């Protein structure tokens, strides 16, 4: 990732240099307009110097620790944690199912709490610790919840599975796995369209009742 983080500062009271940015944007669109030939469908973005300069203004620095690894990044503030993980860090275990917080496929832990990464701007996890499905196992040793999902066949297509597992681990850690009914309620933020719910509940119960460290 190119280090283009000389834009404005996010934090504290350092207001960005808005005037400078506006001036630039005016100029930039002028440049772009000149460069565009009507009727040409393709323009080679890489030829546009102004875009690289623009990036310096549009992108912001952010420090995120993902699965124990610290990342110093420069990103557009509109990038969600989900898209950052999948498209920029290539951690594709976290899934996009709806992009609107309606399915739970994107569930990750931020500072230990399960959240929907699709509705989390990556900027807002600056300085925080993110755990994704890729960070759950210890090397080749699967997390007990991963083992239980395999044993109980808590999935079919597997697409919701990373979100289900991250949610299931949180469900136990939060203390919301004391009964089958409670597990169902507290796992209801994760849709499984293949319909593996009973198996998932059984997997969580086994881990919970087994008293394993989650």
């Amino acid at each position, binding site marked *: 990732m190119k280090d283009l983080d000389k834009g404005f500062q996010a934090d*504290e009271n350092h207001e960005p240099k808005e005037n400078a940015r506006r001036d630039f944007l005016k100029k930039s669109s002028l440049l772009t307009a000149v460069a565009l030939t009507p009727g040409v469908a393709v323009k080679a973005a890489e030829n546009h110097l102004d875009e690289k300069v623009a990036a310096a203004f549009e992108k912001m620095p952010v420090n995120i620790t993902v699965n124990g690894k610290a990342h110093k990044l420069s990103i557009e503030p509109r990038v969600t944690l989900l898209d950052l993980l999948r498209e920029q860090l290539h951690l594709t275990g976290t899934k996009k199912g709806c992009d609107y917080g309606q399915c739970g496929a994107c569930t990750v832990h931020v500072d230990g709490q399960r959240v929907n990464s699709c509705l989390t701007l990556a900027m807002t996890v600056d300085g925080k610790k993110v755990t994704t499905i890729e960070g759950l196992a210890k090397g080749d040793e699967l997390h007990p919840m991963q083992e239980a999902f395999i044993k109980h066949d808590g999935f079919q297509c597997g697409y919701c599975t990373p979100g289900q597992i991250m949610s299931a681990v949180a469900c136990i850690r939060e203390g919301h796995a004391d009964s089958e009914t409670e597990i169902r309620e507290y796992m209801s933020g994760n849709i499984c369209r293949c319909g593996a719910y009973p198996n998932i509940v059984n997997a969580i119960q086994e881990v919970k009742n087994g008293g394993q460290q989650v």
Partner: protein
Amino acid sequence: MKQFQYIRPATQQSVLDAITKPGTKILAGGSNLIDLMKRGVTSPDKLVDIQKLPLRGISQNKGNVMTVSVGALELNSAVAENKIIKESFPLLSMALNAGASPQLRNMATVGGNMMQRTRCTYFYDTAMPCNKREPNSGCGAMEGINRMHAIFGTSEKCIAVHPSDMCVALAALDASVEVKSKKGTRYIPFTEFHRLPGETPQLDNTLATGELITRVIIPHNNFAKNSYYLKVRDRSSYAFALISVAVGLDIRGGNINEARLAMGGVAHKPWRLKAAEQFLKGKPATVANFEEAASLAMQGAKSFGHNDFKLKMAPASIIEALSNAAKLS
């Protein structure tokens, strides 16, 4: 999503300075705002992330009137699980847990929950007419698919409902909202925080530009033993209410000393049922009285076709919720 400027001020003063400018939105948990931005319903130029402000914490204040204060940035999940809340205001805990999903409750804040916008499909789809999103573009729902829509307090301009569960409980609990701006601090009774659509459905609430919600204050009450939050929905969880009812009863020797009732899924704001509360005061907690209260509550209700069923479901739900709160069923 349009590019925007993102700042994360560390002090309340800088936030208050920043939010006076047009095109600026406050970002807290983001669980509704980011959703709306993705769909182009709102396109702020600037987001002011207030997560650094010290607006957390739940505390008891034992002054003249005992109150509990809940910081505006406190998470929905944290409030629902909080010992003070569970003991003193189980209604609030129940309502919070009936909302959204565990993940969203871990993101959503108290202030953000209050500020969430309607789920009306015509509001969400920028290709549809909606007076709330785009004043004077018309109301798609009025003669459209209005199964989820309001039966109380509607206007010619808008029949949307406020989607929150938490707010229904806070309205029933007579909470008040502390808001700050550069002009100072003011307190808004919770029932006056949200508003009816009238001629200006684009305004969801009475918060003025430049104002920041800092905390919610809930006065002590005697409803803890007889509280119930009923949410009727199309699936068992993770769905918005068709009808919800928040009930708090102070029952002494079988008689209702005081009753609080509010409904969700029926109006542009949490809908307090004052006439029903008045009726129940001093009366025995019986199904017959609950039925009478429910019929009083329904006065003035008006449906729009697909939501006709709410005229039946709402009173039935009031009776059911009251019976549950009174432990009759």
